[in-house]
């Protein structure tokens, strides 16, 4: 028998001839119903929102110093270049930034910013557009795609991420509901990279970005 057959057989033996006697096996429909019931009354098992609406909650969560995130509200995509310029200047960075192929970032080039697509191993700053934001945790989510290189979120020292206000979901479960069909890689990013591996001291910028700046785009 293959390893697969052996393992499945052992599991079935355990489920049907267990210590507590034979268990009745459920039909797939019963299993699905039970799985769904385990998600009932979600408010009982998730935190109370930090603000009156998802956008306010998201902003409140991003203000948590433990996340190591800064946030700017940007009045529409047209105002993005200016916001990016201001951020780079405030960190004494040159007006150069790596961009993904997302068309909404095209306007950055020519607005006094020098942009490039190929990200360098030690890139100082890059910008991506997040598919979603999650108010419960102050997270942004990126989905791998032709115009969404995952590494652009991981390699730079400063990662800027634009997310539209109407893409802010209230809870983790609201994002989960959108998870099928799954992208190849979905990364939920909550704050800057960090580690507590040396004596429990928190150090920012372990492998990923040390600075995450959210640009919250209003319509």
């Amino acid at each position, binding site marked *: 028998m293959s*390893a697969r057959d052996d393992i499945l057989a052992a599991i079935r033996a355990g489920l049907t001839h267990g210590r507590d006697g034979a268990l009745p096996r459920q039909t797939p429909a019963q299993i699905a119903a039970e799985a769904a019931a385990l998600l009932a009354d979600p408010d009982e*098992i998730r935190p109370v929102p930090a603000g009156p609406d998802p956008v306010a909650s998201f902003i409140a969560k991003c203000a948590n110093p433990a996340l190591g995130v800064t946030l700017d509200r940007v009045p529409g995509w047209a105002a993005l270049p200016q916001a990016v310029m201001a951020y780079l200047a405030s960190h004494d960075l040159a007006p150069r930034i790596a961009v993904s192929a997302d068309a909404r970032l095209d306007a950055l080039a020519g607005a006094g910013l020098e942009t490039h697509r190929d990200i360098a191993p030690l890139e100082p700053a890059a910008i991506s557009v997040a598919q979603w934001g999650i108010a419960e945790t102050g997270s942004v989510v990126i989905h791998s795609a*032709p115009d969404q290189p995952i590494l652009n979120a991981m390699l730079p020292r400063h990662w800027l991420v634009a997310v539209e206000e109407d893409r802010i979901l209230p809870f983790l479960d609201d994002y989960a509901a959108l998870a099928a069909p799954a992208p*190849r890689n979905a990364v939920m990013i909550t704050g*800057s990279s960090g580690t507590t591996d040396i*004596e429990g001291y928190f150090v920012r910028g372990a492998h990923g970005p040390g600075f995450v700046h959210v640009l919250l785009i209003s319509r």
Partner: protein
Amino acid sequence: MADAAFKTRAHDALADANLKTAIDRTTGTAETKRAAAVDAFPEFQAARARAAAIKDHVIANLDHYLIAFEQNATAAGAQVHWARDAAEAAAIVSRICSDAGAKIVTRAKSMLGEEIGLPHALDDAGIERVETDLAEHIIQLAHERPSHIIWPAMHRTREDVAALFFKDHHPPPDADDAASMVASARRVLREKFLAADVGISGANFLVADTGATCTVTNEGNAELSTTPPRVHIVTAGIEKIVPSTDHAMALLRVLVRSATGGEVTQYTTFHCGPRRAGDADGPEEMHIVLVDNGRARMVGDEFRQMLRCIRCGACMNHCVVYRQIGGHAYGGTYPGPMGAVLTPVLDGLAQSRDLPHACTMNGRCEEVCPVRIPLKTLLKAWRLRTWDEGLVEKPVRYGLGLWGFAACRPRLYRMGTRMALPVLRLFGRGWIRKLPLAGGWTATRDLPAPAARSFMDQYERQQKEARK
């Protein structure tokens, strides 16, 4: 003998003041942060109960979910492998690496990888293995094994880490503070991430309805280990299944709070198959190795509830024994209370019979467990087996037999007490500083002398007098 080995390791650990400092710093912080996170989440107890129910549901239908996961992962283009035991799992991973012509392999921390002996297997295969989790990087340089499932290098102080990095990092760190050393590791490992042929990660969850694997990290090393290489290998225990992403989120809420006191990890990444047409990056192949290694058997025995474990480490952070002796003394892949239950499954009871006994049964571990594993009950189940399999030391066995014989005969017992108490009092009134055969107590503690007359004697005399 296993017994002596555990006691020797514990003795050495207790004598290591540096180790105690390191343990106190990390577990102390973890305990405080967890408490704050739980206080800030009033729904925690309900979330815990739900998390336990989700895991129980999965285990009761494990075959169904594994098949669903396999179908969906395969449909997404991943190759699913099954391994009965550690050796088979390590061999599958080694074969995939050699098929890929791998020279450099990056690994994102996975306790399952340790369980199946992956570091050794890769080293033996002559592949350059790069541990990318900062703590794993530290213990790779020190040629050690993890001492904690969340902070594998928690037994190392900052000064220890500095010594390792100054020796092995070229150029060396700028200074010996934590930030400079993290920066140095970032520099050293960044080149490796981009040069690797294969990236290996574990999985915190296997999502049945999408076929995705989910890994959580705070450093971002999982993304960096799994995105640039041509091949991504996931090794995961078969109990990691969840029905859907939604269920994963419910578990994530209690996992992260219990582990680090955060609400969610900085990076929570879902991988579903290899690179798709037009994708900007990502691996060309994705392999998932589903590992049994004793788990299927647990479905049917008294240790089934241990399959709920989501590897948060809270039990060890709150364990009085772990906090004294650290992780290495346990001698297995997994330390602390959860390790004391799992190690006998993985390494055999004869090898690890001390672990279920070296516990005060205080129950703090199960009080903090996010999936409410009855750890005390499971440790007692192992104690039962050590007794039944004749693995209890003879003096303890005979002593208990004698005690039980007398205790089941109250008149004999009373007579024995009447004779023993005056004898004991020969060694001291008030405090006894030294008592033959009781060195385990009196070497470090004084023993209060017993009463001159037992309660029962005194009470019976009172009753008699009252009747006069």
